[in-house]
Every structure is written in C-alpha cells, then in structure tokens.
C-alpha cells in the first residue's frame, strides 16, 4: 500500500499548487485523494492540532460488501492494512512521515488515525 500510495500521489498532484500547511495536505487526502481512490470523500476529519488526525469514513468501500454490523469484525483489519499504507505512502511523498492505523467497531464505518512524526 505504501508503494502504491507514493505512486498515486505523484500522479494526482502533478499539477496542483503548493500546499499551505499540514492541515491543507490532510484536507487534500480527505477530499481529492479519497474521492479519486474510493469515489467518495472522508466523512469526518478531526485533529488535536498537535499532529494527530482522525479520518472517519462511514461507508468504507472495501468493507461495504462484507458486513453491516459486527459480523466478520475480526477480519476487517486485513482489508484495512493496504489503505493504511496508501495514506502513509501518499503523505511520505508529500514530505510527511507518519504512522497510520485503522479502527473498526461497526462495519462498514472505520476510522484511520494518522500520527505525524516530527523529523
């Protein structure tokens, strides 16, 4: 996922103008990037303004065909790992080092947590 994310972000930002700041980049991930990859935007972005962001997708496309509730919950992480890499790779090529994890409590909603690493 990391390698694919790096490649994708290169292609998508070829002609976009420079990002103002970290928040601007995260908004790009939530809107343009998510829409191009998953055909919808992130539903909710929260941050503590200190390098932690939570991206909430209420109808994550890789989970919608799997379950609408708690069934198969323990298998969900396998299907989220690739997307975590996608986000981490995309951010990496925009100059941001991060750790990305995912959390699911009720499918198909899930939350991606991004922790920016100060370099």
């Amino acid at each position: 996922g990391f390698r694919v994310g790096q490649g994708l972000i290169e292609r998508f930002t070829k002609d976009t103008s420079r990002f103002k700041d970290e928040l601007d980049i995260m908004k790009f991930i939530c809107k343009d990037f998510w829409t191009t990859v998953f055909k919808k935007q992130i539903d909710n972005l929260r941050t503590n303004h200190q390098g932690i962001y939570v991206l909430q997708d209420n109808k994550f496309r890789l989970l919608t065909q799997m379950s609408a509730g708690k069934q198969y919950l323990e298998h969900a992480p396998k299907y989220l790992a690739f997307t975590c890499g996608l986000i981490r790779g995309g951010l990496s090529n925009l100059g941001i080092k991060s750790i990305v994890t995912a959390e699911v409590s009720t499918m198909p909603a899930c939350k991606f947590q991004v922790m920016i690493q100060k370099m």
Partner: protein
Amino acid sequence: NSELFTLTYGALVTQLCKDYENDEDVNKQLDKMGYNIGVRLIEDFLARSNVGRCHDFRETADVIAKIAFKMYLGITPSVTNWSPGGDEFSLILESNPLVDFVELPDNHSTLIYSNLLCGVLRGALEMVQMAVDVKFVQDTLKGDSVTEIRMKFIRRIEDNLPAGEE
C-alpha cells in the same frame, strides 16, 4: 481508477517476486490467484451483463472479448486465429492496462507478468461448464508488437447429479 488498479497489480507482482524468488513459482501463484478471482467474477459478470447462455465456443469468444474485457479492463481485444476445428482462438490486445508504466528487468525474463488474467479466464469459464487452457503466446513486455492470449477448449464439464437423483 485505472492508475490505482495498475499500481496495485504492480505492487502485487513485485511482492510475489520477493516472496517466491523464482519466476516459475510466481507465474503459478498468479494463475492460482486469478483462478480464485475468476470463479467469483463470473457471477458478477453474468449479473451485470445480462448475457444469456452461449451456444458455441465462437459466441463465448465474442462475449469474452467484446463484453467482459470491456467491462473489467476497458479494452476490446480482437478475436482471431481460429483453429480449423473451432476449438482454439487468439485474443489480440493492442494495449494492456496492467502493464502501463511497467518494464521487465533482465533477471525476470521468464516471468509472465499478466498471468493473473489466464487464471481469471480459466476459473470463470469453469463455472460455466467449460474446461479451457489459457496462455500468453506474445507479450509487449517482452518486446513483441502485440499481446496475444491463446484460448483452447478442452472439454465440457458435466454436472454430476448426487446418487439417487437420476
């Protein structure tokens, strides 16, 4: 999004090359994965395309080239090189979305990069009672001018009724 698809397929093949160390094993894995995809994809295909049962292999070839390939890969290969017995034909692909941006390094000359496709076709047709043999005979990644997939009908797969229900 075709770039996501192409990049993800590339990452998949790259990872398999790291895991298996030799091209022959990677080719086998790709075929197996393709087969697993094919046996499920056929349901999605039949549900979305609404094509009825094909009456012969020629019809099958046309449906594969004009409807299936178009639906899943956005390309329409041409159907040519029919054998005299009508049991073998070629699909000629002018372009292959799986190989955009791809170059095969010299140490992987026996890798069949798009072998997943062969497995998909084999698995899908098995679910509609056809045993076929599918292989690449030309590949633009290896310097050929086109990519050619050869499909051969082997036999019809008969459903076996459970004992006592004849």
